């Protein structure tokens, strides 16, 4: 017994020594002539399904930049860590990246809760985080750059499309029970009411993560939608739970023609793991579709296929967000001539970089970017056909104008306001930590 314990102990020591060697000595040799970039995406656990792709995207972008000669005459080096879909671990890993590896910027997070958990660390240590996923808004940090869509760049235009183009009169707001759907639905409900939609014409439904038994909810939706008025479902249902949801819709005979579902979390990557038959015709609102035909997009897709060595892999919206975010950061570092976070934070505001779908994305003073909004219908090959798009780019709005409490608040990180939550009525910065 004692023997085995001693043995195990020795093995642990050896392991520790090896890790220390790998972590400590190896990068030390290069420390002088490289700029480090942190990649904070889950490679295991629930979120691995979505985040692994983003890790690969970052590696590709960094590789590409190095081929172009690096940045400020130095090579870029990716430091990849795995927060394992564990929210507190995100904070720990972020601290490790900033204090131990001394990365110049972090690209990462997917769920809002992981971003919220990283937030205090990144503010305390004054780092930079690029967050590439559509989210609920109501936040603007000095240290975070939101390259995904704010609600006014995804949810509101989608509702406008349903209301004006499809003549939808009754609304089902269905979501998974956590912060993003709750906040988004709160905004949407307020928006619908401002458009004179009666309370009885709005049905709100929340389900737990990974919900798989949709029978009664779909039956309810069917009943709700059978009153003769055109009904649509606005879905903030999270990734995994969507498959059984759409399957049940298909099986109960709810077609996209009778009750269309517009989703904010279903993209090309999610569709590649789904039997798409029951989904054809349903909608999704994004700022990027793989099917958009521009030379920039074709080049990006080709580069991705070459890098990942699999011509069947798809590209999606958060990948484009990282593409834009990374290139904006590169431009800002070149402009500032240093990777010092303070200088880069100043330099990046106003930086422009072309979208893959056309138009120029611009980093705004509220740390959000301008984006086009596209609505697509799902096809049986797992791609989208764009059926509607905004005729100009929409500026990301950190604080929704449709919620009474956040209406007077704006974010502006330029002088003289320099605040993420400035109240235009009281002319004060609330000083809260977000």
């Amino acid at each position, binding site marked *: 017994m004692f023997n085995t314990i001693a043995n195990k102990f020795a093995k642990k020591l050896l392991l520790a020594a090896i890790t220390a060697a790998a972590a400590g000595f190896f990068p030390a040799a290069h420390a002088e002539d490289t700029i480090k970039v942190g990649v904070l995406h889950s*490679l*295991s656990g*629930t979120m*691995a*399904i979505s985040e*692994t792709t983003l890790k690969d995207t970052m590696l590709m972008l960094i590789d590409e930049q190095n081929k172009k000669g690096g940045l400020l005459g130095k090579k870029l080096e990716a430091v990849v860590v795995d927060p394992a879909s564990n929210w507190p671990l995100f904070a720990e890993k972020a601290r490790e990246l900033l204090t131990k590896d001394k990365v110049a910027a972090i690209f990462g997070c997917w769920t809002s809760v992981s971003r919220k958990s990283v937030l205090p660390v990144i503010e305390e240590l004054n780092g930079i985080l690029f967050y590439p996923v559509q989210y609920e808004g109501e936040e603007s940090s000095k240290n975070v750059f939101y390259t995904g869509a704010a609600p006014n760049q995804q949810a509101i235009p989608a509702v406008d499309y349903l209301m004006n183009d499809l003549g939808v009169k009754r609304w089902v707001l269905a979501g998974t*029970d956590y912060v993003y759907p709750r906040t988004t639905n709160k905004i949407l409900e307020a928006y619908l009411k401002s458009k004179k939609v009666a309370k009885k014409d709005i049905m709100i*439904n*929340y*389900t*737990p993560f*990974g*919900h*798989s*038994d949709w*029978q*009664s*909810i779909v*039956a*309810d939706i069917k009943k709700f939608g*059978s*009153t*003769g008025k055109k009904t649509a479902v606005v879905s903030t249902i999270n990734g*995994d739970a969507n*498959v*059984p949801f759409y*399957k*049940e819709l*298909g*099986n*109960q*005979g709810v077609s*996209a*023609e009778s009750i*269309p579902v517009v989703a904010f979390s279903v993209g090309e*990557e999610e569709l*590649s*793991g*789904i*039997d*798409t*038959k*029951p989904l*054809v*015709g349903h909608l999704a609102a994004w700022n990027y579709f793989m*099917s958009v*035909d521009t030379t920039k997009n074709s080049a990006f897709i080709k580069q991705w296929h070459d890098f990942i060595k699999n011509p069947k892999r798809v590209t999606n919206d958060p990948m484009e967000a990282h593409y834009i975010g990374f290139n904006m950061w590169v431009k800002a570092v070149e402009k500032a001539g240093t990777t010092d976070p303070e200088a880069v934070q100043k330099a990046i505001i106003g930086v422009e970089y072309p979208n893959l779908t056309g138009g120029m994305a611009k980093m705004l003073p509220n740390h959000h970017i301008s984006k086009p909004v596209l609505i697509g*219908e799902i*096809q*049986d*090959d797992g791609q989208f*056909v764009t*059926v509607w798009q905004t005729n100009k780019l929409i500026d990301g709005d950190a604080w929704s104008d449709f919620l009474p409490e956040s209406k007077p608040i704006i974010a502006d990180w330029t002088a003289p306001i320099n605040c993420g939550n400035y109240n235009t009525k009281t002319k004060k910065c609330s000083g809260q930590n977000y």
Partner: protein
Amino acid sequence: MNILSLTRFQPVLALLMLAFSLAAHSDPETVSQPWQQALNSLAQGSMAEREQAIMQLADIKDAHNLTILQALLDGKLFTTKTDAKLVIGTDNQQGFTISDAVSGADLGAVEHDALSKINLTNKMRGTLRKIIGELELSADDPKVRLAAVKAMAKEADDRVLTLLRERADKEPDEAVRQAIKVTLLLQDMDSSDKATRIMAIEALKTKNSQEVANRLNTMVEKDENGEFIEPDEDIRNLAKAALININNRLQLYSSIETVFFGLSLGAVLVLSAIGLAITFGVMGVINMAHGELMMLGAYTTYVMQQLMPNHLGISVLLAIPAAFVISALVGIAIERGIIRFLYGRPLETLLATFGVSLILQQSVRSIFSPLNRSVATPEWMSGSWQINDFLSLTWNRFYILVFCLLVFVLLLQILKRTRLGLEVRAVAQNRKMAKAMGIPTARVDAMTFGLGSGIAGVAGVALSQITNVGPNLGQAYIVDSFMVVVFGGVGNLLGTLVAGFSLGIANKFLEPFAGAVLAKILVLVFIILFIQKRPRGLFPQKGRAADS
């Protein structure tokens, strides 16, 4: 995608189109000029032009319309990338077999990427269904005619109504005639003649139709100013009476539906718990990797479908024995490799099997990628059994319910009637005595664990048809499985069955009032309280074995 790139080559295209129309002219069948133009803009126009083209095609009655429009609706209409020719293609795994859309001439096989599909939007699909409905109203098959009438009823305008009126007199099939009648009667409700309206309401009151209910509802509702939308009081009262009638039936059917939902949820619970009822219930092993054994079963289904992509139905059926064997083998390996050293130490078993579950998850992630895999549902398992407008049961749930009962009966028979079953029961009741009687207990342990694991694998096949096939599949079901087994009474298979079904039904009756999240919590609280009162579950084991 190709639309834009095509417009860039407009001059070339014009030439091609010329060639195309010349070719069409040399065709013995004469094709009208506007029809050809409509076809061209269908193939190469923008989405808006395409929409118009469909309408134009419908107006110019041409014999080819039905084939082309049907192919378009089914997603089988393509243009060739080389010469922008309109073709109908059928997928044959390696590529497409194509035929000319106009002449029907066989053009052989091509690669997948030689064609580009003509994409549709929902609006176009609706229009197409209506147009095809009009064309198929005189088809030979009554089923096709019924579908046609239903599609037309959705967009009933004057033209549709005239067509339906004409058809009503000639229609030989009863069901189709009824469908036409309901559509026409619904229209009569808006008639200016009061007698016609009363007659329509009287006739429709016995129909189980959602549309009728909607129409009647609007008759008794008030508008924003508090005035009745329907000014005539007689009609209003009549509508009220009819509505009560219809709503009663609606309620009845919706409770039948809820019971079915509950049973089918229960069937999933029973399926996932029944393997555990053996390993945990009979052997007393807390196997945290049980969910992962189900996941292996689901992945087996995926692999089977990859092996035989042309026979979806058969591959799912074959996956059942395959999943049983694979999960059983993995189960036996776990038992032989780990669990047998830990008998009598439940805490260590729990930790060790939890470790195994993580290892299994991560290995699946490494082998198949962390992304979910797409498992297709065979034709006979999709859609629903439409009993009437108010009640329809989905086929996949129905089959899983039947499958669950089959597995249960089979398992019961194995335990009751086979030698293995006898030995399993003997070891469960008194291990030492069984050993003294010459039963190889170690081997029986392995076999029992294998049996329980194999059934978990079979449950995985069923789960692959209703939920995601991914590395996390097992985690979602492990807690529910333990819940069902403990609630039903450890060591009692019948208890598991009853517990699964009652939890399922309770959940589904609570869900409409409490919402999905709260319903789950309420059920869990109920079980905790129940276990406080009756620690041995619904059907406690009796006798000496239970006391030890």
